[in-house]
C-alpha cells in the first residue's frame, strides 16, 4: 500500500519537468508573439505628431490641375511643376488620420512597405526591391502616410488596384483563416498527443512498473552516477 502511494507521488512528479519544458516553450511563443504584435520603436526617435506645412502642400487635388483642361482634345497645357497626377481621395476617401512627417513617417513607411509584395520581382517586399515599380510604390506609400492616410487605407488603396496579391500577409477573413489557424491547430493537436502519451505512461507506471528506474547513464559518467546515487540516498 505504502509502496503504491509512493509510486503515485513519484509518477506525478515525473511529468513536472516536461510540463516545465512545455510551459517554457509556450511562454516563449507568447512573449515573441507579443513582441511582434507591438513594433518596438527604435530608441531615441522623436515622435512628431504636428502636421508639417511642407507635406501638406503636396496634398493637392487633381481637379485643380485639370481645371484648365481643353475638353475638346482632352489635352491641357501646363508649365507649372510639381502637380498631383491623380487624386487618391477619389479612390479611398479622405485621410482618416493626421498628417505625419520626419522619422515617424520614415519608420512607418518602411514597416508598411515590408508588408506589400513587389509586383515585378516575385516574393520580395517593395521595401527590399530595387526595381523601379517597387520604388514608386514605396514613395506612393510614403506620400499617402504623410497626408494622414492610415495603414489600412494605404493597404486598401494598393489592394484596390493589385488585388490581394499585393499583401504579403494574407487577410484574416474567410478561407484565408486556414493559413492562420491550421498551424496553431496542428501545434495544439501535437501537444495534446504528447499529453495523452504522458498520461498513458503514467497510468502504466501506476499499474506496476518502477517509473523512476534510471535507465542509461548520461554520458558514460561514473562521477555523475555516483552523485546521482548519493542524492537518491
Amino acid at each position: 500500500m505504502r509502496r503504491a502511494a509512493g509510486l503515485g507521488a513519484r509518477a506525478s512528479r515525473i511529468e513536472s519537468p516536461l510540463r516545465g519544458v512545455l510551459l517554457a516553450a509556450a511562454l516563449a511563443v507568447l512573449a515573441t508573439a507579443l513582441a511582434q504584435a507591438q513594433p518596438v520603436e527604435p530608441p531615441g526617435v522623436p515622435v512628431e505628431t504636428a502636421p508639417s506645412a511642407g507635406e501638406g502642400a503636396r496634398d493637392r487635388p487633381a481637379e485643380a490641375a485639370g481645371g484648365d483642361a481643353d475638353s475638346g482634345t482632352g489635352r491641357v497645357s501646363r508649365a507649372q511643376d510639381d502637380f498631383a497626377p491623380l487624386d487618391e481621395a477619389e479612390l479611398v476617401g479622405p485621410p482618416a488620420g493626421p498628417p505625419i512627417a520626419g522619422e515617424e513617417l520614415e519608420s512607418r513607411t518602411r514597416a508598411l512597405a515590408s508588408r506589400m509584395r513587389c509586383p515585378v520581382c516575385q516574393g520580395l517586399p517593395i521595401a527590399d526591391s530595387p526595381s523601379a515599380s517597387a520604388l514608386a510604390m514605396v514613395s506612393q506609400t510614403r506620400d499617402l502616410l504623410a497626408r494622414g492616410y492610415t495603414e489600412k487605407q494605404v493597404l486598401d488603396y494598393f489592394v484596390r488596384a493589385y488585388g490581394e496579391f499585393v499583401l504579403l500577409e494574407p487577410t484574416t477573413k474567410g478561407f484565408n483563416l486556414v493559413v492562420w489557424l491550421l498551424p496553431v491547430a496542428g501545434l495544439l493537436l501535437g501537444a495534446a498527443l504528447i499529453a495523452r502519451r504522458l498520461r498513458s505512461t503514467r497510468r502504466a507506471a501506476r499499474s506496476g512498473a518502477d517509473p523512476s528506474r534510471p535507465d542509461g547513464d548520461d554520458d558514460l559518467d561514473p562521477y555523475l552516477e555516483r552523485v546521482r546515487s548519493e542524492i537518491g540516498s
Partner: protein
Amino acid sequence: MAIHRTPLVVGAIVGIPLIVFLALGFRHDPNVIESPLLGKPAPSFVLRDFDGGAVDFASLRGQPVVLNFWASWCQPCVAEHPLLVEAARRYAGEVHFIGVVPTEDTADAVERFTRHLGKWGPAYHDADGKVSIAYGVFKLPETYFVASDGTIVHKVAGPLDRRTLEQSLEALL
C-alpha cells in the same frame, strides 16, 4: 494481417485534399493575375507628355479609351507596337488611344522609339509612377480598355495580339 486504421485515416485526410488541390493548381497560371479593377471606374489622372502637352483623363469620358502602358526599353512593347499603330489609324475619332510610359523613360528614348516604329498616340510620362500604381500595372506592356462611361471593361497583360485587340475594341464600341 491486422490493418491499422490510423495511417489510412490520417493519410486520407491529409493526402487526398493535397493531391486534389495540387492537381487543380495546373488549371491556373501563377503568372496571370486578374485585375480587380474590371467593371470599376477607371481612376482619372492628369499627366504630361514630353512635348509640354498634358491630358486630363476625366475629360475623355464619352468616348472609349485604350490605355496602353509601355516603355521604350521593353521588348514585347516593340512587338505589339505596329498593331496599335494600325488600330489607332482605323479607329481615329471613335476611340482615344492613350500611352503612358514609366518614370525611368526619357524624352530621347521615347522619341527614338516612335521615330523607328511609328507613333499611334501621345505618350504621357508617369513621372512618379502613381498612375501605374492606381491601375495596378505589373509588367509592361499592359493595356486597359475603358468604355465610354469610364468603366474598365478589359485588361490585357503582356503584348497584344491581333485577335485580342480586335475583339476588345469591338466590345468597346
